[in-house]
């Protein structure tokens, strides 16, 4: 973990409520896709945990949805403004288990961490399929970005206004995949848990106090003991999750 100051390079809307923010700063603590950062905002006590969408040696990209006071304040920020950020939080996805053709399933604002993951999997020679699930056409983002990486992309919408009508799990039936990675709201994760025929990894969300393992605010029970979503998570393996299929 590292605490450092980042400067906003750009902050642009991707949809009515989803924004992409690119920042420059020290990214050396970020070691794996699926990790998150924790952002201090003026006038708010708790930091806001946001997943890492992408990073390189000197820049960090986050994609966030405006859901409350904190993210609304972020949406109003301008390039040049500085943010105090804790980086390198959480375990991130384990790429070594992917096999040759993993499938990535993202639901809504669960899509962003899959971007750096797809990039890393392609770099290690995987043939990557991506399913992006949204409620409706105007909420879709990142379809082109994943295609540009070389992924086979399927978009689903719950109302059928674009792509395949249904959920992120709908196209899974006809697919041949070696492993899965997913991030999205909990009902979607449960559906992925049931629908998938291989092992895989899921990224979880919880309200956090610190984001680095000190407060025990985000604990959960797993088949391999109590875990902190912020420290031993947010990514859990399917085999350790306590849901019954």
């Amino acid at each position, binding site marked *: 973990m590292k605490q450092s100051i980042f400067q906003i390079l750009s902050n642009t809307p991707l949809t009515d409520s989803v924004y992409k923010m690119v920042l420059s700063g020290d990214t050396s603590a970020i070691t794996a896709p699926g990790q998150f950062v924790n952002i201090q905002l003026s006038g708010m*006590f708790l930091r806001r945990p946001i997943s890492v969408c992408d990073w390189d040696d000197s820049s960090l990209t986050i994609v966030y949805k405006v859901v409350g006071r904190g993210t609304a304040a972020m949406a109003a920020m301008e390039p040049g403004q500085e943010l105090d950020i804790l980086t390198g939080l959480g375990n991130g996805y384990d790429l070594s288990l992917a096999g040759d053709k993993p499938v990535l399933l993202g639901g809504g604002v669960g899509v962003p961490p899959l971007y750096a993951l797809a990039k890393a999997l392609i770099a290690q020679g995987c043939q990557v399929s991506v399913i992006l699930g949204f409620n409706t056409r105007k909420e879709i983002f990142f379809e082109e970005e994943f295609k540009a990486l070389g992924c086979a992309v399927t978009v689903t919408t719950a109302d059928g206004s674009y792509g395949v009508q249904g959920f992120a799990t709908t196209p899974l039936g006809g697919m041949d995949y070696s492993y899965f990675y997913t991030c999205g709201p909990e009902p979607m994760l449960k559906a992925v848990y049931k629908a998938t025929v291989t092992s895989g990894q899921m990224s979880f969300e919880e309200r*956090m106090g610190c984001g680095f393992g000190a407060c025990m605010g985000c604990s959960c029970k797993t088949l391999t003991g109590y875990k902190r979503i912020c420290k031993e998570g947010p990514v859990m393996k399917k085999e350790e999750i306590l849901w019954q299929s």
Partner: protein
Amino acid sequence: MAELTVNLCGIPLDNPVIPASGTFGYGYEFAELYDINILGTFSFKGTTKDARFGNPTPRIAECPGGMINAVGLQNPGVEKVISQELPKLKQCFHKPVMANVSGFSVEDYAYTCEKLDKEPQVGWLEVNVSCPNVHGGGMSFGTEPEAAAEVTRAVKAVTAKPVIIKLSPNVTDIVSIAKACEEAGADGISLINTMLGMRIDLRTRRSVIANTMGGYSGPGIFPVAVRMVYQVAQAVKIPVIGMGGVSSAEDVIEMMLAGATAVEVGAANLVRPYICRDIIRELPEVMAKYNIQSLSDIIGGVNHG
């Protein structure tokens, strides 16, 4: 040369800064960030007789000037704390540590304290009779003078180490409870634990916290903490540890003027992980600004009238 040392119940501290229980784990998360041996000491995660998962999530809520937590004393139980956590702690912290203990019966408190009494690295026992987040235990011992005294006597009977009773602010007369603990043999008083609070999500019309209520901490409770530390320090002869919303070197000095011998820093650790290191670094400069040569000289030094 600024003198930061204080004496807490017979054990010298290099400085009065102590990370509070529940905000510092068993130390090693923070030892990755800075050398935690610069601290006066720290109070480790509240430990109970048996292992506890704690409350369902969400356990955390944002508040103006702080946060609510309802963790519910998650800990591996005293046996595992001794066999697994303390050996790891020993690797990164070489000073006497403060063992924070909670219980659900007088016997629980005595059992856990007796075990921890045998650990050489434990300098003080901080006995939490004030956790707002567990039903039928914790705080109920801290809201009645006689119950708090009974826990104090039971713990004193099983340990020779200094016993510090950690009190709840969720009472009408904190002084009577502090005095009852002192009369029962307590070596020190620490206060304040969190204030019982609640937030409601307007969209779902449910409490943000799964356990409905939780403990409010952070800078918002600082004035209440200063007031209660002042009241208790005026009434007892034993040392008082002040805590509640402390976030700066100035806050440490204010707490000490109110009557605190040492000062715990809680919620601030969670959002500013280097805060205790920074406070210790800044203390000499802030002391100079207010013409303070030695911190022990200012304990209870608030002027009256």
